[in-house]
């Protein structure tokens, strides 16, 4: 056997810093490790063979769960995409798995004929086809890497808890920065446009109009962004309804009420009834759209469901948005 790279099972400062930066969306699509064979601990010919992807965040999750274990790790080339998504796209698939097993001569490395594949890789893998192509039996491991030690100790048996994908608060919280950064980039651009446009509304000079309307308008826009990208994911289980667009709209409505309290407590013409109505339409529309976008990051939405809610919600979001803009422009009067 040639040289096999041995990996540490504790994460260093650079790994942790890397995890934080990709959670904020920086360099996320090129955060990869080299595909191929790795060793954790000092594996031998009877040691388990674990399969994963070359997204470094996934790879780091796996190896940090393997302290004290002696296992082989086979890394498939998924172009830096995590197991579940790569399985959905097919890059984490039967052919890719069999090719890596062949290329790294796993058949000569170990005496057994078992591959531990993460359960969330199953949408890309056909266990019976892997058996036919490579002679190896696929054993589906737990959903979460942290359950691997228990899984291996139990003779590769997963409990029901290990098989179930949940979406608890902690898992939603780590997704917030990326949701906010992606929407925030557009919102920054829109803020400039809103500031610029608001100067042309009203009888006062440009700069006075910007001060009068622009600041409130930008604050309203960001209320919608916050409601859709932070409040909606955070309170997902307690927001009413099953559709994410509805949950987002409710979060947006609550945010709009808070925003209006500020709007009417201040002085100036921004606080008339048309402006109030406008924001009651605009903020929920923005939050509803962004809440709907969170379906992709969630762990339990189906394509059929997403299409259904989009068909219903998007026309409403557009109508609410247009009506809101007209009301706002009217309240500002040219």
């Amino acid at each position, binding site marked *: 056997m040639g040289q096999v790279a041995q990996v540490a099972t504790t994460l260093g400062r650079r790994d942790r810093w890397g995890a934080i930066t990709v959670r904020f*969306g920086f360099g996320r*699509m*090129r955060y990869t490790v080299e595909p191929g064979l790795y060793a954790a601990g000092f594996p031998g010919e009877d040691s388990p063979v674990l399969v994963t992807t070359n997204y470094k965040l996934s790879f780091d999750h796996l190896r940090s769960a393997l302290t004290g274990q002696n296992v082989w790790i086979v890394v498939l080339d*998924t*172009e*830096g*995409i995590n197991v579940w*998504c*790569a*399985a*959905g*796209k*097919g*890059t984490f698939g039967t052919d890719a798995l069999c090719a890596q097993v062949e290329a790294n001569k796993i058949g000569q490395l170990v005496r057994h004929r078992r591959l531990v594949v993460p*359960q*969330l890789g*199953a*949408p*890309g*893998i*056909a*266990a*019976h086809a892997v058996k036919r192509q490579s002679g190896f039996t696929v054993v*589906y491991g737990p*959903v979460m890497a942290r359950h691997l030690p228990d899984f291996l100790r139990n003779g590769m048996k*997963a409990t*029901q808890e290990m*098989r*179930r*994908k949940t*979406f*608890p*608060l*902690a*898992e939603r919280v780590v997704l917030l920065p990326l949701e906010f950064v*992606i929407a925030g980039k557009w919102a920054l651009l829109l803020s400039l446009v809103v500031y610029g446009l608001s100067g042309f509304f009203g009888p006062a000079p440009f700069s006075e109009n910007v001060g009068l309307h622009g600041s409130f308008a930008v604050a309203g826009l960001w209320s919608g962004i916050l409601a859709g990208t932070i409040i909606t994911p*955070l*309170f*997902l*289980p*307690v927001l009413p309804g*099953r*559709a*994410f667009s509805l949950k987002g709209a409710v979060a947006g409505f609550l945010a709009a009420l808070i925003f209006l309290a500020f709007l009417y407590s201040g002085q100036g013409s921004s606080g008339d009834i048309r402006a109030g109505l406008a924001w009651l339409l605009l903020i929920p529309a923005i939050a509803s759209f962004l809440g*709907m*976008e969170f*379906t*992709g*990051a*969630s*762990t*339990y*939405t*189906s*394509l*059929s*469901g*997403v299409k259904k*809610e*989009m068909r219903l919600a998007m026309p409403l979001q557009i109508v609410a948005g247009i009506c809101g803009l007209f009301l706002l422009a009217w309240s500002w009067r040219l």
Partner: protein
Amino acid sequence: MGGTKRLLYLKGVATLRLDQEACIGCGMCLAVCPQEVFAMDKGKACIIEHDACMECSACMMNCPVEAIWVQNGVGCAQAVLHTMLGRSGKAGCSAGEKPGGGGCC
């Protein structure tokens, strides 16, 4: 705000179908389903929570006798939008597109 309550998506939309006649009771669908959609009853798989199905197609892929069918796809509004706007990659996401691009998973 906790994660103990089971999260369910829209009712009655999942396309999942199971042919119990063809089922050989191997239990692979129970092993791969992350949403506990299936249970075993008298040596055959059965669907106990149809609305929990997220159409990931893990069960269909791993059924050795093709007793399961589902119109598979990823429940991602962004991907659906990208496809509608004709800007799609394979699945509308950024896999396989140029590195550094945004996109979802």
